[in-house]
């Protein structure tokens, strides 16, 4: 059974953290990754709950993006707050999901996430370039369900 803490290798987490940090240096938006066990019946609802719990909803420009991976039931969700969601074209989140899951199916988890993170980062940098808002960068960009 996949374990939350060991599903991604230390190197993978380092790569993902680096990708997120690089992405966030270009935008006032924030990107986080959360790793859990089971998504439940409604992964997006679970992601919204975590989004609130992590305090990401507090961003003034509503430009946070949460990537959520559930390792036991092999589910993935990406959730963008209202600010970024209104800016991106229809179907954008679906395409992010597609890019991530294509790699996940090949067991390239870190590469898949990096691809999705880069896509989100492009949009955040385009619509919320660094300097147009004083958002606080989170200390823990990768977090785990207890």
């Amino acid at each position: 059974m996949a374990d939350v803490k060991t599903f991604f290798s230390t190197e993978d987490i380092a790569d993902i953290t680096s990708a997120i940090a690089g992405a966030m240096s270009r935008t006032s938006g924030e990107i986080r990754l959360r790793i859990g066990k089971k998504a439940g019946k409604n992964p997006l609802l679970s992601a919204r709950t975590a989004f609130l719990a992590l305090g990401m909803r507090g961003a003034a420009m509503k430009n946070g993006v949460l990537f959520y991976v559930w390792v036991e039931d092999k589910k993935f969700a990406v959730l963008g707050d209202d600010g970024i969601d209104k800016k991106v074209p229809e179907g954008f989140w679906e395409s992010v999901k597609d890019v991530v899951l294509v790699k996940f199916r090949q067991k390239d988890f870190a590469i898949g996430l990096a691809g999705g993170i880069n896509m989100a980062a492009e949009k955040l940098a385009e619509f919320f370039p660094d300097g147009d808002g004083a958002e606080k960068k989170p200390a823990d960009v990768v977090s785990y369900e207890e």
Partner: protein
Amino acid sequence: MRNNFKFRISNFGFAACAVFLLLAAVQLRSEVVYPQRSEGHVHDFAGILAETDNKTMGEMLKSFQDAAGVDMEVVTVKNVEDYGGQAADIDSFTEGLSKAWSADSQAGKGILMIVSTGDRRIKVITSGAFGPEYDDILLGIVNGKVIPFFKQADYSRGIYEGVREIIKQLSQKKTFLELYGGYAAGAAAVLILLCVIILSRRTGQAKAPVGDADSRQKKPVKEKQDAVVEKFGGGASGGW
């Protein structure tokens, strides 16, 4: 008389050269000069794609090739006539480009989508590795996902939506079982659901008035539980 003959010869030579040059020009014009294949899977010769759409499609198509082994190329041109050829049309242009480009690509599963804005035409062809049933799928995607945006002159969005849908449907469609297994599973699920409904109704009728009152009260409670987290933002989810 002699001078006149010379004049006639040189005059004839000039006319012959002119005819030769004219024929050469016609010959050159009749040969289509296909554009050079550039890096990646998206070749926007018409310059109609938004930068982000172009980049996103490139990444999606690269992942698609890695995962499913399908080499899909997207090409936009302003007019197929710009590349020469007598009575050039998008059908012959697409076939010709497919042959010209496949020379330096690996044989296998290939899809070529060509959009000519000046001709107001889109053409999607597949390699022989795809069966004829894919023609209907691709036609449905073009009509349902691409054309509505083309009618609004939003070529970039139309191509993006079409590419995304092709990847989505072809990633799912692999075997007969995968194609029809979903329907079978759906039919089985409907049958099971019907059985459950019939059984639960019978059980409810046996319990008479108390059961009815309870069931009416339980539904709003469930809805209230789901509504604890307000809906905000947008996203997508799936499994692997």
